[in-house]
């Protein structure tokens, strides 16, 4: 898991891929893994960026492995938001289309404070 230093300025150089609601502050970068149901949990490796429609208590074990989490749905009181704030994992929720726009293996930077996901070149 690679956490970015605070002064890392990526806004000028990176392409914005998707935005949503910033639910847990912090920045992290990594490779995207899209998981749509518990049946796909085995795809998750430590340090990856978890992209899911929404999470529930069943997802706790895979969430722990993630460097950051991006979801299609959810508000600031949703499960991914609350759990990520406790863990200190950056999270962007309510993107509406993360599981469609983002692709497996893409390298991205997640800004949990601003609620944005950038492409990492």
């Amino acid at each position, binding site marked *: 898991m690679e956490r970015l230093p605070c002064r890392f300025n990526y806004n000028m150089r990176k392409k914005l891929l998707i935005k*949503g*609601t910033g639910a847990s*502050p*912090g920045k992290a970068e990594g490779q995207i893994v899209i998981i749509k149901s*518990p049946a796909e949990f085995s795809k998750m490796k430590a340090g990856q960026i978890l992209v899911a*429609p*929404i999470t*529930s*208590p*069943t997802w*706790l*074990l895979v*969430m*722990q492995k993630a460097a950051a989490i991006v979801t*299609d*749905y*959810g*508000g*600031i*009181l*949703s*499960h991914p938001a*609350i*759990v990520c*704030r*406790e*863990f*200190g994992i950056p999270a962007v*929720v*309510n993107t509406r289309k993360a599981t469609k726009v983002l692709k497996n293996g893409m390298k991205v930077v997640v800004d949990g*404070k601003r609620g944005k996901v950038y492409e990492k070149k």
Partner: protein
Amino acid sequence: MESGVKFMKKNNLLIDKTMKAFERVAFMGGDFSDPFAWWPLNFILYMPLYMPQFTRDLCSDYRLLRKSTPIEKIAQEHQYPTALWLDLVSFLSGSKMAGLKKEEGIKIILEFLKMLENLMVGNIFCEDNRNIVWDEIEVKRIINRTSWVETKLKPDFAKLFARLHSGLISLDEAIFWNTNCATREVHGPYKVKWENTPCQLIVREYYNLNEPKLLPPNLSSPFKSVSTLTIYDPRVRFDFPILNDYTHDLPLVENTKAVFGVAIRHNKIELLNTKGALKETCELIEKKSLEIGSWAESLTKKEQVVETVNRYYYRVKPIRDLLGKDWQAPKPLVQSIRKKISSFKPVQEKKRMTKKQFYQIYDPRIGP
């Protein structure tokens, strides 16, 4: 109604704060009617099927009880402010659906606010950092008598406690199916001193974790309750503890000063003061969350809704207990839900709500 108006004016600050809190959740969460903002989806998606009935039941029970029991006693029976808060939320959001007259709705809402005041001694939200549940003497006693684990000396404990808190939130949601659950109470922040510097204490209490009436068949939780005390740097902003959540802009793990945890497991008290005990507790809680969550998600949609309804009714168990009534949802309601659900198509399309519309719907002082 005149006396009601006077009382209303006195409580305007409280109502405004309530509205502000709703607003924060609604608008910061993106879309107010986002069913995915809560878990499970059924809670919001199918709420129209049982909400009016629930509110009517709650209202008639409350009125029946109110005739013979003083407000203070009803409040004390709830024990924890969250249970009362949840009832208040139900009234606020459902009073129109339940067909209550405006004056009647306002009267009951104000009585609930009075009960909340009674239970919390002061501000219902912690924006001014005032004590809501424990008084100063209790906090001092706790601070002095607790065997704290300093995270400066044992940094792993901050991470393990964050893991424990996440696990507890998930287990709690798995049992109660939505984030508005009645099995936990988070209170504070209490102003405390740690190493002679001002800090804040947050108390997280999870009880009823092994409630046989709510746990799925053949699944039980080894824990009766788990409580943690955490001292944080004062810069961390906790602003929403009543719904057991908060927004802040600083990582909790890095700003944890000291921790203490205790679990009651099979009626035996266990201190969570070693890494081994903490890890084992975290793993057990995570395993149970997975088991219970998987069970819930494996049910048919119809049965999920019925289960959700029962959990929703569980919230008013204290009132029902006082009346000597069973807490479970009435059978005719369950039957009607089972009948309706095949033809009931929830509208999944979200509506964006303006602030004005939001206040019109949820402020009891504004008529329809």
